């Protein structure tokens, strides 16, 4: 199986281009799938049409999620993911927002965000962000199993029948 992509949920095309440019400058290619609204993000993660082909639309390794999105906000997407009964609820989610409001930051963490990044003012900072993101989330971080069963509270391997 090819490497799981980063799912970028961002409605601002300018931001998308600048983000893609920054990731494009990295030494290693980072596969990225881009969606423009919260509804699409939920449909994608659920594997609903038109995203029902997991070969073409695999479960991402990390989601880069904007807060202010059309139809369904980043918060709502985040809430939806954490509410899932399947292992999908473990999906690492990194908020990427222009808001530095503590209200937004706190709410994101309350809802289970794994990280919160503010959109940088300059593209050199954005380059730095892309590089650090890759190093940490796609390198250092140990990814969870997003396909197995969610933890039931029992130690693994010991099943009483």
């Amino acid at each position, binding site marked *: 199986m090819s490497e799981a992509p980063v799912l970028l949920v961002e409605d601002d095309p*300018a*931001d998308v281009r*600048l983000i893609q440019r920054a990731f494009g400058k990295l030494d290693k290619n980072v596969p990225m799938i881009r969606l423009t609204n919260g509804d699409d993000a939920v449909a994608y993660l659920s594997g609903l049409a038109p995203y029902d082909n997991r070969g073409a639309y695999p479960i991402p390794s990390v989601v880069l999620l904007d807060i202010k999105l059309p139809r369904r906000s980043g918060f709502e997407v985040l809430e939806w993911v954490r509410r899932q009964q399947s292992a999908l609820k473990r999906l690492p989610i990194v908020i990427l927002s*222009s*808001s530095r*409001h503590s209200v937004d930051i706190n709410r994101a963490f309350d809802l289970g965000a794994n990280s919160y990044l503010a959109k940088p*003012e300059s*593209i050199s900072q954005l380059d730095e962000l892309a590089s650090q993101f890759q190093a940490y989330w796609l390198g250092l971080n140990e990814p969870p199993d997003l396909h197995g069963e969610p933890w039931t509270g029992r130690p693994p391997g010991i099943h009483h029948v």
Partner: protein
Amino acid sequence: MVLSDRGFAGVKSHDVFRLMVDSVVDYAIFVLDPTGVVVSWNLGAERLKGYKPKEIIGKHFSIFYTPADLANDKPGHEIRGAAELGRFEDEGWRVRKDGSRFWANVILTRILDEHGTLIGFGKITRDLTDRHQSEFRYRLLVEGVVDYAIYSMDVHGNVGSWNLGAERMKRYKADEIEGKHFSIFYTEEDRKKGLPERILRTAVETGHFEGEGWRVRKDGSRFWASVVVTPLRDDVGNLYGFSKVTRDISERKALQDAIQQHADELELRVQEREQSNAELEAFAYSVSHDLRAPLRAIGGFAEALRQDYDSHLDDGGRDYLKEIVAAVARMNTLVQDLLDYGRVSRIDISLGPVNLLEAVNDAVRQLGDERRGSLRVDVAPDLRVQAQQQVLTQMIFNLLSNAFKFHSRNSAPEVRLSAQPKNGAVRLTVRDNGIGIAPQHQQRIWQVFERLHDRESYPGTGIGLAIVHRAVERMQGNRGVESEVGKGSTFWVELPRAPENSKETNHE
């Protein structure tokens, strides 16, 4: 009564009895023949009515009655009643020999012989004038009360007595309403709900009913009544009716309603204000988010152009790009300053004791290292002001930024921040060695977007001191500036000093 045949002291028993009756003075005891003619007369009767036995024996007893009673044949009615029922009791006015009246309690008892033939009547009369007078005065009192409707009801709730207050309040005359059920005073809805019956039941069960509600006058108009119903019981506890006292408190009710309405309106306005505050909050949020997104794009692509296509540009092109990037930075600052200004104006400020030095230190941390090096702080660690930590810090930061910004080109900036208690306040002073402000400009500088210098000399948005002005205003303080061109400026703000022993708040 059974009398012994022996009697005593040799006197025959029926004579003893006669002597006793004769000598009773507190009761008039006399005998009438079947037609009502007086046949015996005791001492009590003589005293009470003023007739000697010889004056009255042989006369008809109707002589004791008032003309009004005679017109109604009351004496005949009483005799017939007693003849029929064996006993007749009455209370009413009777007339003495001299024409004066007294209030009498009268018991007329039928006397039959051993064959059951009517041979006459015994009559016992008591003078109850005194008791009647006090009852009468009481009744007059009740009847005369005009501010309260006071009336009595029988056990079923039918109206008995009816005072003037009741007449005025409910518009019924006594003779119109007597005998009618009191539910007539209630609204249709209350009657349907069985309220009148429930009131009587409650009064009986708990000994009392008290309540407020709409009542209906004879003309159908309504008034808001305060009502007390009390059950009336006789000596042995048998219920024989109710008393009801009603007060028209429509005015009080109207006043209460008006107050309630005002309170509701106030509540609504508070809600509206909270709502408009929330809308402003949402507005500020979208300003910070949406206004900055295109800015980030402009700045980002300008820089990308410079990085990715540098070889395609000459110096003129690179210069234009620099202008774009600088304008974006300025716009970013402007948006940030406007947001700060809006927040200071809008934020719910709850004032509490704040340690001044801590706020100063917070503000100083936000200054760059270079500026920090040229700042002297002289604030006692125990000074506390009534303020809001966040707003106070922002205000101090803006004062310091301002002091550093307008320094003279010929000398290094030196800024001194100090604080002194002054009466019930604390005066915070920021002194710089900068370019100073001409007297004619010293008021303008506090206004938003006011700038005294071109952007190239002193960049800025013209919002910094406006934030200070607004912050001081919101924290119920004062502010001012003393300055001379070329000799630097001294900005000061005064904030109320926090009371001793008060607990520090506002730390977030």
